[in-house]
């Protein structure tokens, strides 16, 4: 089902614009009233000097397609998620987002098999510096065996 040949190959980086309106809508959707996300005056006086995005906002960006990887459309479970921050994402900046599949493992239990897919992702600035990165585990229930 998952071709092991796609392991460790980075997707082509996708430009992601951290848009003011998108950040405001995201902050509203998560009920976070932190003025650093929406209030230009407060943000300018902060140590960042500009509006920033909430810590889980990076999840909304497009990380591109991993060559050969075909995920099932249904039955995926988000198991774990970890973000690593050099700094917050800044409103108005453009980052370059890519991801790769780092690990595939299958565990068999009484209720059938579960496949664990571990992804690594990163957002880089213009100079290639990693601003934020993340690790995500997706669980695929059942499905066929793989090598």
């Amino acid at each position, binding site marked *: 089902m998952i071709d092991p040949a796609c392991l460790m190959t980075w997707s082509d980086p996708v430009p992601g614009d951290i848009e003011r309106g*998108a950040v405001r*809508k*995201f902050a*509203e*959707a*998560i*009920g*976070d009233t*932190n003025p650093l996300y929406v209030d230009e005056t407060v943000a300018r006086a*902060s*140590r960042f000097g500009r509006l920033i995005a*909430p*810590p*889980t906002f990076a*999840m*909304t960006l497009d990380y591109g397609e991993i060559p050969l990887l075909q995920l099932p459309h*249904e*039955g995926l*479970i*988000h*198991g*774990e*998620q*970890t*973000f*690593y*921050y050099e*700094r917050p994402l800044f409103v108005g900046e453009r980052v370059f987002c890519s991801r790769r599949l780092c690990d595939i493992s299958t565990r068999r239990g009484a209720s059938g098999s579960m496949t664990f897919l571990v992804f690594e992702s990163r957002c880089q600035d213009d100079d290639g510096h990693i601003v934020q990165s993340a*690790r995500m585990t997706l669980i695929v229930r059942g499905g066929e065996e793989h090598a």
Partner: protein
Amino acid sequence: MPEAWLKGQGLPSIQRGPVTRLDLVRYAGASGDYNPIHTIEEFAQAAGLGGVIAHGMLSMAYLGTMLTLFAGDDADLVEFGVRFRAMVRPGDVIECQGTITELVEEGDRLVAKVQFMAKTDKEDTVIKGHAVLSRLFIQRAPQEVER
């Protein structure tokens, strides 16, 4: 001057919800996660979930609010990781709690490791996780500062 951090110190907890179906629609739109198990009842039923379930990332975002409120203007969020353990459903109230479990001095910075969880009013622990916060070291003995 920000307050001192102490090992064993609890973070101010926050409560969110009850989570509504509209909250899930809003989060779907703001995040771009349109998986219909979060918004369309018939689809969630057919998927065997017994009804729509909240995005795990919405609960993670609530925890992010707790962490950034605690970090305030001075501290950086360095790492933020969760394990999703149970499902949140419309009507659930979510309580976020955390504790500083470790304090380490690294050069001129003080680094706090935090363990946290999110649980519902039905006492399900839906998320367990950890975070790392960092800020400039604060002199604990004021007489040294004043000489």
